[in-house]
């Protein structure tokens, strides 16, 4: 399976203690995906898409997916069909 790095628009919450929590991902075609829950946050590299930053393991529509914050841009590992 091949993946590509896809930058996405994200709506996020900045908490009082400085944490950033993603709430909604806006896909390129205009579809919105709401983040049900953030399961894990850690610095990590994305070997699949290529990059490194803060990795959010998110549950979206019952599926677990990674969302990366690389400096000031968000990206996901998109499967290439």
């Amino acid at each position, binding site marked *: 399976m091949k993946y590509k790095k896809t930058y996405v628009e994200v709506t996020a919450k900045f908490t009082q203690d400085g944490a950033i929590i993603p709430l909604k991902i806006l896909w390129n075609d205009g579809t919105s995906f709401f983040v049900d829950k953030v399961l894990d946050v850690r610095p*990590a*590299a*994305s*070997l*699949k898409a290529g990059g490194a930053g803060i990795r959010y393991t998110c549950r979206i529509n019952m599926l677990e997916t990674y969302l990366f914050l690389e400096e000031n841009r968000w990206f996901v590992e998109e499967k290439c069909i």
Partner: protein
Amino acid sequence: MDRVILHVDCNKFFASVECLHRPEIRHLPVAVGGSVEKRHGIVLTANGLASARGVKTAMPLWQALNRCPDLVVVPPNYPLYVRFSGLAKSIYCRYTDMVEPFGLDECWLDVTDNVKDIEEGRLLAEEIRQTIKDELGITVSIGVSWNKVFSKLGSDYKKPDAVTVFTRENYKNLIYPLPVRDLLYIGPATEKKLLARGLFSIGDIAESTPEELCSFLGINGYMLHSFASGSEDSPVKNCEHKRGIKSIGNSVTAPRDLVCFEDVKLTFSVLSETVARRLRDSGLKAKSIGISMRNSELKTITRQLSLSFATASERVLLHAAMELFENNTDKPFKIRSIGICAFNLEDENGTVQFDLFGEVKENIKYERLEKTVDRLRCRFGNNCVKKASQMTDMNLTDFDPYEEHKVHPEGWFRL
């Protein structure tokens, strides 16, 4: 207890960072190389696959492509490497504040206070190795020992993605058979001298007396003896330790040979702009200036002069550089690369001695003007104000050493 020093070396740093960001070329031989058009066409780093095919650092790109025709050459992205270097350093700082960088991709860490013995040092090194791999997606090799030189040897001993421990028990077996060239600060010239006297391995150096080594290496004989025998004991400097700046310089290899004074002046004008701006950024002024010139036969000469007053003005630097150049070059010439270096530095707020002819007053006026331009460039980018003279030959002046050349070589000898 002995100190526990780690030396972390990011393997094939530039190439690894590029391969991380471009999964599509990860399985191919890759080299990071400068632009051939601008005559910076050498291999800066090659990945493992390219190295295995004979591509080496500093090799001209044409030669690398001859050895490995399917080599993928990618241009360097220094801001990205600086970012990764900073990320790696922030990981090291989780374990100790005694972190001393040695270039962008290497660091020494003194973890003596965090571990009971060298075995715990090894475990810590394994943890750091894994953390870098998980968080940055690149591999490191780590040397663990009781001094900086042996830990550096350790990080070179086994690559990539490995930890090597040199203890007081095993170092003679492992280090002494290594060739002299593996030791820090032994380059081709010193190697030649050592081999001529029958010193082939690090053990041979360690078993000679310092006086013997000094008889043909001068004062460096003492240093090399301490390096080889494990008695070197310099401390790992705290990462907060700010080094005193002794000189500020920039140089460039021109896209074509410089053949007239006008070419040289144009190139010097870009370089002096950057050197002066870096002086002002650091709150310094220079009392001496040096230039270096390398001709098309790769012969380099350097010349320097003292100024009658300290300056941070590009105008004064350029004038002095041209004076030096004109007095030390015979026509016709073919210059491949030139550089300007400002040294003998003083605080910009130091006392000023005015002169009879108003030169110092003029200098202050220029510095004020240039500081105003600095502020404009800070707000609107480096190209918002440009000298009209530099636009007469954009081919020569189309480089920005202020932004592009921020990666500085490191030396062992420093403040």
